């Protein structure tokens, strides 16, 4: 059952990431037209529920997607199995999630 769940989780997270990446790129290209600096970016993102949800969701999706992908690579290239494979994958997931959410908090929290 685990393989099916991971398969679905990886595809669902990819489906979430795709539109969020497009939003990110679109807004970035639009916003940078007249020149923009860090202070202006923070002015727009701080306290914004929309950008907090947008990038928070993106970080969660990336953490799930990348950890499952890394799990596949570890299993195929290093022949890791069982608890070691699970522990390394979970640590990678937790690391990505922590670093990503900290970054989101830094630009979104007032």
């Amino acid at each position: 059952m685990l393989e099916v769940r991971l398969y679905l989780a990886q595809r669902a997270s990819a489906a979430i990431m795709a539109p969020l990446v497009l939003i990110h790129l679109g807004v970035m290209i639009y916003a940078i037209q007249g020149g923009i600096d860090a202070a202006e970016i923070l002015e727009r993102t701080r306290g914004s529920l929309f950008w907090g949800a947008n990038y928070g969701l993106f970080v969660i999706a990336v953490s799930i997607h990348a950890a499952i992908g890394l799990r596949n690579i570890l299993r195929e290239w290093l022949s890791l199995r069982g608890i070691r494979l699970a522990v390394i994958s979970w640590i990678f997931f937790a690391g990505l999630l922590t670093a990503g959410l900290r970054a989101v908090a830094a630009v979104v929290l007032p």
Partner: protein
Amino acid sequence: MSFPTESNSLPIAVRVWRGTSAGGSFEQFEVPQQPSQTILDVVTWIQRHLDAGLSYRFACRVGMCGSCAMMVNGIPRWTCRTHVNKVMRDNQLTIEPLRNLPVIKDLACDMSEFFEKWTDSKGYFQGSTTRHDPVSTLSPNSPQRRVADAATECINCAICYASCDVVNWNRDYLGPAALNRAWSLQNDERDSASAERLSVVAGDAGCHQCHSQQGCATHCPNELNPTASIAGLKRMVTKAYLRGELPGHGSKSDA
């Protein structure tokens, strides 16, 4: 026995793998070119004229039995239907045993694991009727039958198995041929082991390991597409899971 040789043609420089899984090396032979010569003809010529100890496997010589597959210039091929002039480069051939399988001797592989995986994936028909029941009526035009038909005609040559990088990385992986067979049976309306088979192919050695690289489809001599069959199994497993119809499955190394 002598064959007519192609005029003005140089002999073929053939490197042949000699040895077992424990070790070995290439041995060089020179073989005269002949009209309509196949790779199997080359190997047979070496055994009959140059080295009677060369081991290899073949049976039908017409592309039906699936026993003569070897690596030819790095690509898995059915050697009885592969013409020398189609694959030879600079008058040279390199012939090796199939990749991803243990070598018994020279060009003969041990096919046990390949066939055991067919059994593991329940790649056999399981009916629920007896001879006393009426014969099933199947429409050859039904969508399910068309899908099943597209996956048949496999000759068990293991070329797909040799071309698959996932098999190379994960020795437990059932492989393209076994999963392709499972897919054709899943679409056989008469088969009664669908739920059990689905739970096996959903396991950690099953369809989800496939990266859709399509090496199997590229090299299959019968132009089957095991990648498409495996994609079908993924869809079938996903639907069963979402409906809560996927029973617990046997897992070799749950992680």
